[in-house]
């Protein structure tokens, strides 16, 4: 059995907004093949924590390491290894669904981008919308496109903020199986969720944030 290597290491992370401390002395180690689910009520700090993990927000204290490198959002190495779906994902208004995926696949140097794109497009059930511009997609379809951007490219760590949002029941079931399969292939996953089915199917560990309050 291959030795599990550490993909993400979080030490003593602290984030506060004024007098309101969101989390303090937060430690976490995620190895290959592990999936960590962050749960907790609204405002518990799940999204803030994930934003700190991907470098979209700056923690007040502590450190985040990805594959042994200190977290630096601008680093091409980190961008290559970490696939994220958080609330700040934007789309080009004038590129179609399939063109977004094609661009990402090519940017990451995938040898056969057409095949990779077709596969993911079919999986997220956006084939009929492949020529549509993002502004015309429904919120659920936009969420599927956002997830597709994470699946069409190489990755070692997946960070997802409530990936089940706006997906229909079938979509949530598909996502659960897809993330489970990602984990089984050796990927590390950290995700925040309010969906018990998703947490139960995917997570190897569950961390409840803001538990002390409730």
């Amino acid at each position: 059995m291959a030795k599990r290597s550490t993909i993400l290491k979080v030490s003593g992370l602290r984030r506060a907004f004024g007098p309101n401390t969101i989390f303090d002395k937060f430690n976490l180690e995620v190895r290959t093949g592990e999936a960590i689910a962050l749960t907790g009520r609204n405002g518990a700090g799940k999204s803030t924590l994930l934003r700190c993990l991907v470098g979209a927000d700056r923690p007040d204290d502590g450190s985040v390491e990805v594959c042994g490198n200190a977290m630096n959002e601008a680093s091409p190495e980190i961008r290559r290894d970490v696939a994220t779906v958080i609330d700040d994902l934007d789309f080009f208004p004038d590129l179609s669904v399939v063109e977004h995926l094609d661009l990402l696949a090519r940017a990451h140097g995938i040898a056969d981008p057409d095949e990779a794109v077709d596969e993911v497009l079919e999986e997220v059930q956006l084939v009929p919308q492949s020529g549509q511009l993002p502004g015309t997609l429904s919120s659920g379809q936009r969420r599927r496109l956002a997830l597709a951007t994470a699946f069409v490219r190489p990755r070692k760590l997946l960070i997802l903020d409530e990936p089940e949002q706006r997906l229909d029941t079938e979509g949530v079931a598909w996502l659960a199986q897809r993330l489970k399969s990602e984990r089984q292939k050796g990927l590390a996953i950290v995700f925040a969720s309010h969906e018990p089915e998703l947490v139960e199917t995917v997570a190897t560990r569950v961390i409840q944030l803001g538990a002390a309050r409730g």
Partner: protein
Amino acid sequence: MSSLEAGADDFAYEQPSEPKPLTPASPGELKRLMKDWRAGRATRNVLQAMGDAYVAVFAAVMIGAMVVNVILKAQRTVAQCTSATCLSARAILPWAAFAATIAVALAVSRLFGPVLASAAEGFWLLDAPISRSKLLRSRLVGAIAAAFLAGAVIGGLISALTGSGQTGVLVWAGATALSAASSVAFAAAQQGLERHRLTHLATYVFGVLAVGALFSVVGVAAGWFSLGLSDDVGIELGLIMIAGSTLVLLISAVLAALRLGQIRRTRLLSGGALVSGISGAFFALDIGLARDIVVERRAIERGHVHPKRGKGLGLEALIWREWQRLWRFPQPILVLAATVVVPYAADALGMSVLTPVFAALALFGAIIPLLNGLRVLTRTGGLARCLPFSLARIKLASIAVPAILAGVWAVVTTPAYLGFGDGAVDRPVPQAALTAVATAAAGLLGAVRWTQAKGVDFGAPMVASQAGAFPPGLVTNLFRGFDVCIITTAPLLLGLSPWWSLGIAGIAAAILLNSMDAETLRARQAEQQKQLAEQRKQRTEAAAKQRKR
């Protein structure tokens, strides 16, 4: 047994008696009712409100009087000028303003409606069994009247500033006003039929005519050809335009009024949503956001495209996509091509010294629509995080295509700096070429700065002022981009070598492309403060330990 288990057949219900038909309120009655409600909630009347805002009213009156005085003085001065340049500008520029006003009126009308309704009106009023055309009539009249006023101001101002006499100013103000009003009415008539092709076509035709008119100003001023347009002929033609525009206005307005009831609610509401979104963005002085809303709206109108396969791997794929997107929405290239006339016109009109500034500002405006990719990649950072490159390389790839086009623009505008108008500054070819390159760099970098500027941070510490507290970025946000254009072209304005401008452009490029923007600097400062606090804490702890010993 619960009612759910019983099934529909088991329910006994009483047949309701036929309801007495209600007489719906007329749109006029509804409007009066809403006016009464609003008036009932008002805590001040108009005079009291004006009393409160007397400083603003007084300032507006003062500034208005000064502006009118300046315009009249300029008109008297320019009217005495009889050089070929002045005569060509006087004869042709009102025509350019006339055509440009029509093109802008048509484009804006098509974008917003021109007839539109707010979300509240759409939900509460348009659903009701009332005459939609009566409800919307005031909107149509309002849009036409607004276009009339704007056209009158533009037409009058241009003809006055080119030195036309009083009759000429009145004729051109009337012609431009009526043409703008008739354009809006025409677009409204087309809106009633859900057709936009004619409006679209007319926008391009009048846009090309406006650019053509500007080119002829340059040609006449440079002595390449003569049009033989005297003031009298210009006035006569202006009167013909008034008659023609009035005819188009009457026919279009009647057709538009008849078709008001046919306009779909979604179309009315999308115009209203666009207006509220843009006005919100302008209220925060976030012009970038206002542009984003318009770009998104255009993309939604297009909806679907024929997907194109990408090319290359890595950064090459990103550059290739920029190129493809440009061909998908090629209108910005036409605008860029039209701006080539600006340095020639400025030189021909004897404003040689100011030519680089005007040209850089024109290019700045024309390049912004070509930087949509950079805008999306820098406004939130979410999409850039998906790409395995540093932000500096992403930015470089995003501006590669616009930079090539700016380079071509520099080549095409180089002859403008050789000097051919009355009193133009003559420059040798290498210096003219360098001036053109420096000007293009100023325009390009100004556009890059404008595009990647973040919105105003209302969470930042506020600055106190007589008008209340406001974030410091609110004011500086307005000048972003313009500052780079002005600073880069300043050496040219002062008569220094273009190498100075190129040097400044190099520094600006290094700062802009390496993301040394204010936000990064703030983040670095915060990081340093954090480290200092940590060191202070350690020192305090060490001192406390020593004291204990």
